[in-house]
């Protein structure tokens, strides 16, 4: 004689089989997968890049303020002399750094600066010459052009560590001072 399962067991088995094999809720599951592996990371990436580009623009603007200080301030007008060593005086260097920091209210320690500001020199035909050498003496068109490179570096902390997002931002401005 064939043994019968109790009726509630067979009902449970039938119910489960229908539930597991059916495709009810597959849309919800697909949406869940799509959201967690694609949509949410995409959204976070967009936000993160927005913040990154904003920080980049702000730092570039801040170095432009520093560059303008190097050209206009009386401290730097007397403090940048190509024949001195270092050619950019400590007072001028500090003034530039302070101007960059204050321009966008950067918190203290947020920016790092190069130890010295590099000068580059050209003659009037835009060819390079060693700073301190006279263009006229080298039979090249005068006057000498002197440029200073103002730069600052900021650490960017992404809120989700994605390998595509840079973690340092460099702001650089070259400005002609003579």
């Amino acid at each position, binding site marked *: 004689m064939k043994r019968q399962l109790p009726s509630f067991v067979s009902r449970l088995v039938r119910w489960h089989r229908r539930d597991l094999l059916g495709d009810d809720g597959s849309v919800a599951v697909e949406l869940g997968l799509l959201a967690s592996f694609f949509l949410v990371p995409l959204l976070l990436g967009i936000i993160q890049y927005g913040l990154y580009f*904003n920080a980049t*623009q*702000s730092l570039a*603007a801040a170095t*432009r*303020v520093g560059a*303008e*200080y190097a050209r*206009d*301030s*009386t*401290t730097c007008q007397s403090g940048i002399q190509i024949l001195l060593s270092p050619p950019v005086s400590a007072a001028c260097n500090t*003034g530039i750094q*302070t*101007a960059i920091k*204050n*321009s*966008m*209210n950067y918190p203290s320690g947020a920016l790092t600066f190069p130890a010295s500001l590099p000068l580059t020199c050209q003659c009037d035909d835009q060819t390079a010459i060693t700073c301190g050498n006279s263009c006229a003496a080298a039979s090249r068109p005068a006057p000498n052009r002197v440029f200073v490179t103002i730069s600052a570096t900021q650490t960017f902390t992404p809120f989700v560590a994605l390998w595509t997002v840079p973690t340092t931002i460099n702001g650089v401005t070259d400005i002609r001072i003579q």
Partner: protein
Amino acid sequence: MTRKRSSLCRDEDGEVAVEGAVTMLALMFLILGSVQFGLVFWNWNTMLLAVEEAGRYAMLYNPTNYPSGPPAASCSLASPTLATCAQAWGNQNWGNNFGSGVSCTASGGPPATTMTCTATYTFSFINSISLSRGIQVPLI
């Protein structure tokens, strides 16, 4: 009667149109949102340029090098001060389309040692967003 209702419930004609309408609604919000963000970012950057121009003007015609105020050729105001001229310069170059434009305030001194320029703009497309950008420059 009963048969008619149950066949209506099972009927799947027009499903694509209904789903399309629902998706279009979501898509529409996405597109309008993108346009709004685009306009906001454009204004955000323009405001930075406006305050930068104003700040650059203030640094260039700083009170140490120009003790009697900025040169008349650079500023057509009736009673020019460095702050109002810097403000006018920022507005003239970039900020004419801003509601309240650029505003500059000198502090320290005398002669003033710092100039702070701020641009504010309340932007309205889908909803109202208030944007503000500022810059602070040394005058010595």
